[in-house]
């Protein structure tokens, strides 16, 4: 099954989705939440640096598409 295949958010049945969600919404949940237990191998990665890294990757791909999104002095 393709991980990119969009699935409507109103899918019937409990907790079946959403699989086709925007990546940024998924990362909001995968990176800053979840049960945090200390693993053996990559302790540092389950923390802030991971969030920063991923956002950087996300942002750089967005800015390739949209060079100048700030028309009015930035967010709020």
């Amino acid at each position: 099954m393709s991980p990119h295949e969009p699935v409507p958010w109103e899918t019937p049945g409990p907790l079946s989705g959403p699989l086709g969600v925007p990546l940024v919404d998924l990362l909001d949940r995968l990176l800053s939440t979840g049960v945090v237990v200390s693993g053996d191998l990559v302790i540092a990665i389950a923390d802030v640096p991971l969030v920063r890294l991923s956002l950087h990757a996300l942002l750089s791909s967005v800015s390739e598409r949209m060079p100048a999104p700030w028309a009015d002095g930035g967010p709020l």
Partner: protein
Amino acid sequence: MTTTQHTAPTVDGTTAGTATYVYAVCRQLAPAGLSALPGLAEGFPVRALRCGTLTAVVQHVPAADFTQEAWEQRLSDRTELERCARAHHEVVVAAAAGGPTAPLALATLYRSDERAREALGQDAARFTAVLDRIAGHAEWGVKVSLPAGSPRPPADPPPDGARRDAPAAPGAGRAYLERKRGLHRAREHRHDQALRTAEDIDAALSRLATAARRLRTHGQELTGTAARRQILNAAYLLPHERAGDLAAEAAAWRARTGAEIELSGPWVPYSFVGEV
């Protein structure tokens, strides 16, 4: 990423060269549909690992591909980042189809199944509390945005410009300052109003929810548009039967405020398993 052939894991889960990646913890003995998923390491089955009264959903992964350096590289790459996030999510969703499931943070790894069992077992009470809390619930995401609005200064003289009897020719410098001040005031006003709208909507939706949580708002660089400004990004833990109420409340606020309100869900309650 290496392309070497990895030895298949043995039954006791202590194969050299592999680590145990943990996706989630649940109660059901054998969550269905897991083995059909690729997970994060194709060729290694996603499976259930019994930990006392709980079940961890795990997968062996080649240890060499899952070091800290490998993760750093992987998550700096947009394509790989997306692949990992969606693969993790897909497994979590499959496990949750069978009952309450607590997702673990991305990149939780142990040296072996034994180590995972031991470590997760120590947190059994916490997991049990989490699973009790989210049973019968789903998470709903709510994002609210307003039109960014062009900075429109009052077309006519700003309030204090009404003093027509004042000495003539206020001068270009003064007119400029007043225009700047007007712009600034307009922007501050919009900002205050936006914050108030966000608070009101969040308060109303929170009243329907068992728990609520604010996520960081996405700036224009993340939403990809300068035309709208996100003022609220939040998650609500709702009993399944309340989902309709949330949608209705959101629609009412949409009509009342003109804000764009985007609902997403039902999500596995990612945002509500880390606080217990």
